[in-house]
């Protein structure tokens, strides 16, 4: 039977690898059950083996940030039947894209070492800007149950279902109190659902870690964050930069700064 299992590999680029760690959080029972159906052939967080063989499903974590990434990505694409951008860094460059809008980030982060050649890098870009990506698992980190669902869809040859409605829908289905009504702010109105809205349920605002829905009303977002959420105008405007720097209407304008 082992030969019939889908071969799954994980690769990492600029990221914290937290999305891969998330996979190890299933617990024994579910993880072992999952291994009945897939064979993990490369996964740095849990095994030392590597592969140069063809792969059924390649899960790529992290953003493109330097020239050398290109060849590695192309090599993965050539070997993989299905490429999944795994987590938000791979999907939209997520939090890494923050640096695209800050000319002084190197001195800010690395201080005296800022000029070291190995710290030089390009703008953070989604993996899909370099190679064709078949499916995206959003989130920072990914939701392991959503990932499981996506894998199970792929095993059956079915395109995964990723919602194009915002987190508000899930908060309502959960009967979670809206952060705005609790005197807080939130970005759930523009953020792609599918996570099950755990943050607002724990009393934490949605930071938009899964990226925007297809057509987010960014004008209203700033307005509501300011008027109802009590954020300063500047903060309201820049709030969505955290995870969606590359996604925003004015993203290109801002990236011209550096």
């Amino acid at each position: 039977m082992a030969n019939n299992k889908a071969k799954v590999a994980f690769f990492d680029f600029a990221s914290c690898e937290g999305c891969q760690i998330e996979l190890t959080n299933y617990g024994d029972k579910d993880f072992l059950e999952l291994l009945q159906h897939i064979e993990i052939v490369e996964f740095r967080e849990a095994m030392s083996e590597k592969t140069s063989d063809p792969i059924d499903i390649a899960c790529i974590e992290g953003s493109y940030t330097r020239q050398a990434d290109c060849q590695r990505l192309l090599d993965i694409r050539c070997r993989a039947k299905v490429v999944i951008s795994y987590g938000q860094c791979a999907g939209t460059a997520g939090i890494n894209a923050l640096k695209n809008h800050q000319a002084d980030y190197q001195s800010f982060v690395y201080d005296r070492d800022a000029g070291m050649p190995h710290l030089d890098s390009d703008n953070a870009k989604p993996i899909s800007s370099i190679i064709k990506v078949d499916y995206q698992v959003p989130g920072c980190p990914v939701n392991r149950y959503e990932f499981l669902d996506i894998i199970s869809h792929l095993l059956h040859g079915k395109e995964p279902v990723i919602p194009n409605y915002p987190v508000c829908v899930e908060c309502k289905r959960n009967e979670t109190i809206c952060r705005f009504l609790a005197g807080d702010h939130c970005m759930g109105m523009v953020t792609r659902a599918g996570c099950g809205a755990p943050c607002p349920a724990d009393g934490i605002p949605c930071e938009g870690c899964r990226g925007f829905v297809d057509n987010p009303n960014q004008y209203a977002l700033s307005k509501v964050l300011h008027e109802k959420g009590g954020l300063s105008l500047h903060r309201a405007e820049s709030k969505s930069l955290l995870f969606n720097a590359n996604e925003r209407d004015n993203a290109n304008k801002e990236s011209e700064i550096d």
Partner: protein
Amino acid sequence: MTAFENKKAENIFLPREAVILNIKETSQLEKHFTLRNADASKMIFEPGQFLEVSLFGYGEIPIGLASSPTRENSFDIVIRTVGRVSTAINQLKEGDSLYIRGPYGNGFKLEQLRSYPILVVAGGVGVCPTRSLIQYIMDRREEFKSFTLFYGTRDPSQQLFLEDLKQWRCSDKVEYYETVDKADEHWEGPVGLITELFKKTSIAAETRVIICGPPIMFKFVIYELDKIGIAHNHIFVDLERRMKCAIGKCGHCQINNKYACLDGPVFALSDISNLEEAF
């Protein structure tokens, strides 16, 4: 309003099994399935009605019945690969099972068509639900006056029911005209939009017209029909919507105040021409 009756209703969402007798690949994207109810019961339906067809784990989609109810032992559907369910269904083999609910909806009102000249205008996959009516008319040709059929596709590779087309081209039961928007090297027939076919024959003002195809086609065809002076209550359109539950509840197929699954999918044009969301 409330007062439920104390009857044991059936679970309307439970499908029943249908076995695939035959599969024909009608184009690169479409497959033509001939099915039989697993319990061997007869499928009773009107041309223009649809089924909810499902595969567990993949989901359920509305599919127009593509054969005539006059053909007793089996029924046909055509599945175009567009989404999750259709992709999965098109990988099935003969002898496999599908799960179906229905038939649902309002079909073509045959009593409003009988003893009149008939024109069917089918664009692209729109030929699938109308095939049921076409077969019916061909089988009971004496019940209708003249019968004209216009069939247009984007290019020759999109043509469906190739065997039927061969038959229609030379049949004396139907005046058949076809066109493609764009020809390929093998195509010897006419090239142009479906509305060009109106120049090839004359359509009487008393004709009853059935239109089925992509939304963009409707406007242009109706424009031609208006020139002939065909009343809008004599024009019937088959609308494609997201008929998810098929029983007028889930709301996905709603067109203004109408439900495509209950009030349609076949509508008299006069009933919907004032509905902005119809076209």
